């Protein structure tokens, strides 16, 4: 069997509600032996174990606030766990907040180059695929490509962001509800792209509440509740477990 591309062992993250800042700083520097449990402390994720193989398409299911997005941030490497560890073997293309990397004062063109390069695309590759990226984002965007992103609608930013990230050759795709934004036409394009990327053998981790999307793409489902991994099985198993709780 292949080595897992994403592996979580006893993974846990602790957040602190209403923490008092000064106190916290002092704690950082002075290690006390037994830490007293803080009443505001909670674990959005704890004791999570799973292994994802290359080429898998994983659907993450759970109610709001059960640590789904936190898990994606851990996989993306933009959050550091407090317990256990997460191993990610390969680069990650995050389709999380698609417009996040854009600088509002730069034009669409400059932003494509900036965000693309920050994600590791070479400038030659970007020059070659630039037209393709802009075409994919649609008419509205290609007309406005030389105006500052500040004047774009939020839908336009998301489209442009998706177009750039769709060009990445990274083996792992993280998708968090991007399909919920954008109109029907763009959604269709997104579906086609994700299917193409899956066919290339990429690994997908998808967070969604849409059963249609989940059953369409995923071959495995993880159901989370209150920060714990409850079900790890087929998408249907996970959805059943989720529905049993939600509809009860």
């Amino acid at each position, binding site marked *: 069997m292949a080595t897992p591309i994403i592996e979580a062992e006893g993974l846990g993250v602790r957040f602190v509600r209403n923490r008092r800042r*000064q106190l916290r*700083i002092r704690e950082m*520097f002075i290690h006390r032996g037994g830490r007293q449990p803080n009443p505001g402390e909670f674990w959005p994720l704890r004791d999570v174990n799973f292994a994802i193989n290359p080429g898998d398409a994983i659907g993450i299911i759970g109610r709001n606030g059960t640590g789904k997005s936190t898990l994606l941030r851990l996989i*993306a490497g*933009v*959050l550091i766990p*407090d317990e256990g560890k997460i191993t990610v073997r390969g680069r990650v293309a995050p389709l999380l907040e698609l417009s*996040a*990397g854009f600088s509002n004062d730069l034009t669409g063109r400059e932003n494509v180059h*900036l965000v693309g390069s920050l994600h590791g695309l070479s400038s030659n590759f970007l020059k070659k695929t630039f037209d393709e990226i802009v075409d994919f984002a649609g008419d509205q965007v290609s007309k406005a490509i030389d105006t500052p992103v500040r004047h774009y609608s939020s839908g336009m930013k998301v489209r442009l962001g998706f177009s750039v990230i769709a060009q990445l050759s990274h083996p792992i795709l993280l998708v968090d509800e991007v399909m919920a934004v954008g109109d029907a036409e763009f959604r269709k394009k997104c579906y086609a792209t994700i299917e193409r990327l899956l066919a290339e053998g990429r690994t997908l981790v998808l967070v969604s509440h849409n059963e249609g999307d989940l059953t369409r793409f995923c071959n495995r489902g993880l159901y989370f509740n209150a920060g714990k991994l409850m079900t790890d099985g087929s998408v249907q198993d996970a959805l059943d477990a989720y529905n049993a709780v939600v509809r009860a």
Partner: protein
Amino acid sequence: MTSSVMTLWENRNALGLLVRRDLAVKYQQSLLGYLWSLIEPLGVAAIYWFVFGVLYGTGSDRHLGDANNSYPLFLITGIFAWSWANAAMGEATSALTGQARLITTMKVARQVFPIGRVLGRFAEFLAGLPILIILAIVFGELHFDWQLLALPLAVLLQTVFLTGLALLLSSLNVLLRDVEKLMRLGLRVLFYATPIIYPLAMVQNANMPGWAKDVYELNPLVGIMELYHAIWYPEMFPSATLLGITVGISVALLVGGWWVFRRLEPAVLKEL
């Protein structure tokens, strides 16, 4: 520590991109472009020249030494170096808080954000160098001599000092937003605690207790500023003790700042 230095090196492209982006954003929409980075320090220098060069200028007890006849050059050299320090420290403080959305979605070594601010402002400092050279020629203080080596040494030390402070301030500011407010006062104090508008000799000859003078020299910017002055006035080259203190404290700040940044990183990422 070494592994995090390695990751920073692997992220040098991202660092360059962010610096270029900051500069592009800053100068794109202004008509005068990069000239603005010169106009402001020159304006400030003109004010100090008027007050301390013209109004308070009595010549004999200004302790300017070699710089007695070229006070504007002395002043502008200091102000240019100070502008870099001032802007870098100010902007680095908000480097993480101001780019939270980028940091929470993209995996790059987080150190690039504060360090980028230091380097971006260094680019502006470089843009001002031709002005300094022209002034030095006008005042006849440009000597092609070993003393020119004081410039790279000063730049190196200032980079070390600023990088350490930037790492420290940016990460602390996420957890304690008061840092940003304190910085405004802190920077003003630091400006007057550095020999920019007055020469160091004036402090050394001032009527104050010896320990106060020692404390004064603990500010690494004192030694760094004297190195800048030494480019034109070799007699101002810092003494071995002062240079040692400057190097020691700058390096300690870099190591300490790096350590604090690494230590606070998990908490910073949760807080952003």
